[in-house]
C-alpha cells in the first residue's frame, strides 16, 4: 500500500546479518568492539565496556545493588511462583522450563520487587531479569508489578521500575496477554494515589511490556543502545520485507521520535533517578 511505503525511512542497510556469530560469543566479550573483560572488571564498570561504552545486560540483583542505597532493599513477594494454568507443553513442559530458569537464575520469576531507597529517597523498586525466560511477563510478573504499585500507593512513595523483557509469556496463553491491562490498571491506581512512576527501560524492552506499564511512566528513561520496540527488527523485516534503518528500535531512535525523555548512561543512572525522586518528593 502506497501510504505506508511512502513513509518508510530507508537510509542505511541493516547490519543484523553481520552478527551471525552472536550465539558463540563469550558473555564477557563486547559485541561491539570485541574487547574482553574479567568478571570483576565488568562489575567495577557497572557492566559497561570501558573501550566503547557498550552496555552489557545486568542481572536483577546486580541492578538493585547498582541503583539502591546499600542495604535498603527489602524484597517482597519472594514466594510468588508461576503456575501452569494451561498444562502447556511445547517441545518441553512449561513447568520444566520454569524449574530450570529458577535453578539457573536463583530467582522465583522474571521480576524482583520491594522497598528501597535511591540516593536516600524512599521508593518502591521493581527490577526485571532477562535471564529468567527472556524476562517474559506471565501472571506472576504481572501480579508482582501490580502489588508493587499498590505498596507504592500505600506508602505514598514513587515507583521505580527497571524493565528488560521479550514480552508476554506465551506459555500462559491468553492469561499472559491479560497482564497488559492488569498492569495498566495498576498504574492507573498509582496515578489515582498521586504517586510518581519512573520507568527505566533497559535492553531489551519489547512487545507486551513496552505495550503496557513500561510506556506509562511519568518519566521514561532509557540506557544507551537499548532495543525498545513493540515488534523486534527480525520480525519486522520478515513480515514486511522493509529495509530497516540502522538504529531501528534503539533508544536513540526512540528519543528522536519522541518516545523517551532521556537516555542516561548507566554510570549516571543512579544520580539521575535520585534527582527525579527529589523532584517528586517536593511536589507532594
Amino acid at each position, binding site marked *: 500500500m502506497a501510504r505506508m511505503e511512502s513513509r518508510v525511512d530507508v537510509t542505511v542497510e541493516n547490519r543484523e546479518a553481520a552478527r551471525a556469530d552472536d550465539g558463540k560469543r563469550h558473555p564477557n566479550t563486547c559485541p561491539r568492539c570485541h574487547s574482553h573483560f574479567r568478571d570483576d572488571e565488568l562489575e567495577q564498570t557497572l557492566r559497561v565496556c570501558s573501550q566503547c561504552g557498550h552496555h552489557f545486560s545486568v542481572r536483577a540483583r546486580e541492578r538493585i545493588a547498582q541503583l539502591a542505597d546499600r542495604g535498603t532493599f527489602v524484597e517482597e513477594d519472594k514466594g510468588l511462583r508461576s503456575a501452569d494454568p494451561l498444562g502447556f507443553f511445547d517441545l518441553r513442559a512449561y513447568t520444566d522450563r520454569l524449574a530450570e530458569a529458577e535453578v539457573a537464575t536463583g530467582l522465583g520469576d522474571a521480576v524482583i520487587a520491594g522497598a528501597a531507597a535511591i540516593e536516600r529517597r524512599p521508593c518502591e523498586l521493581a527490577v526485571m531479569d532477562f535471564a529468567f525466560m527472556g524476562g517474559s511477563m506471565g501472571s506472576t510478573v504481572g501480579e508482582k508489578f501490580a502489588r508493587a504499585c499498590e505498596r507504592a500507593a500505600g506508602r505514598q512513595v514513587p515507583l521505580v521500575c527497571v524493565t528488560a523483557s521479550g514480552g508476554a509469556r506465551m506459555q500462559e496463553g491468553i492469561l499472559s496477554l491479560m497482564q497488559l491491562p492488569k498492569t495498566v490498571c495498576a498504574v492507573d491506581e498509582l496515578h489515582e494515589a498521586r504517586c510518581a512512576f519512573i520507568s527505566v527501560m533497559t535492553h531489551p524492552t519489547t512487545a507486551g511490556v513496552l505495550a503496557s506499564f513500561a510506556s506509562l511512566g511519568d518519566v521514561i528513561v532509557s540506557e544507551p543502545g537499548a532495543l525498545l520496540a*513493540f515488534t523486534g527488527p527480525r520480525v519486522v523485516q520478515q513480515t514486511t520485507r522493509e529495509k530497516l534503518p540502522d538504529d531501528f528500535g534503539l533508544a536513540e531512535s526512540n528519543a528522536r521520535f519522541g518516545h523517551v525523555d532521556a537516555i542516561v548512561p548507566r554510570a549516571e543512572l543512579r544520580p539521575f533517578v535520585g534527582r527525579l525522586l527529589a523532584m517528586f518528593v517536593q511536589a507532594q
Partner: protein
Amino acid sequence: MTETPASQVEQLKLKERLAKLRDLPLLRGVGVSGEMSRLKRQLDRIGSEPTEDEVWQAVELARHQERPYTLDYVERMCEDFVEIHGDRSFSDDPAIVAGLARFGRRTIVLVGHQKGRDIRERTHRNFGMTYPEGYRKAMRAMELADRHGFPFVTLVDTPGAYPGVTAEQHGQGGWIARCQLAMVRLGVPSVTCVIGEGGSGGAVAIAVADRVLMQENAIYSVISPEGCAAILWRDAGEAKKAAAAFKPDARHCLELGVIDGIVPEPAGGAHTSHDEAAALLADALEGSLAEVGVTDPDDRRRQRRRRFRSLGIYLD
C-alpha cells in the same frame, strides 16, 4: 485384554482437571460470591473441554473469508452510524473504524477493527492491522463517549498491531499502552466483543471493558498460532499443535475468567448468516449494557480495574 470405556477415561480426565483447578489459587481479589459463581461457571464448562480439532476449527472460522466484519454488524445492528475519521494529529487509519451509532434507541460510540473483503479493500484496511494512528482515533472516540455519557462498544477483529517500521517509529507500543489506560479510565459503561481474531496487543488495546464477550468461534490470544509454533516448535507448520496448547478459543477464555460470556453464532459459524449473527450479537451487547447499568464514574473505574486486576493464575 482389558478395555477402559471411553466414558471412564473422560471422567478420569475431568477429575484430574477439577483437582488441578481446586489446587490453583483461582481469581484472587474477587469477592467470595463472585468467585464462587465464576468457579461454578468454570466447572460447568469443564465437562465440555474442547478437543484439538475443535480449537483449530475455531481458528479457521475466526479467520473465515466470509465472516462478518465490524461494518457488516454496524449496518445490521445500528439504525444509524456516522463514522469519525482521523487522529487529529497525523492520519486516518482505515484498519479501525470509529463513530457515533444509534443502537437500541440510544446513542453509543462504537469502535472496531475492520478487515477487507476483496484484495483491494484488504490492502486498504491493512488486513485489520492497526497503526498508532488507529489507537489515537480510538482514544478520540473514547473521549467523545466520556464527554457526552454515551456507552462505549468495541468489536475486536485483528491479527495484531501492524509490525512495520513507521508503526514502530510512531510509537506502536506506547500507544497501545495509552489506549488501554484511556479505556480503563472511561466513566461510561463499556462492552467489548471479540468477533473474529483477537490478536495480542493490537486486540487488547481496545478490549479493556466492563464486560468482555467473545463469539462462539472467535479466538483471543497472546500470539498467532503460526507465530507461537515458529518460536516454540521452530516450525510454523505446527500451528495446529500450538493452538491446542495455548487454547485461544472462547470456552477456554471463559474458563480462565478472561471473558464474561460467549455470544452464540448461527449453526456452522457467523459466515453462514450475517443477519442472524448480527441479531445474536445485538442481543448480547444489549444484555451486557443493561447488566453493567449506570453507576458513579469513579465506582465504574474502580470496578473495571478490579475486574482486570484479578486476572492471572499463580502460586502464592
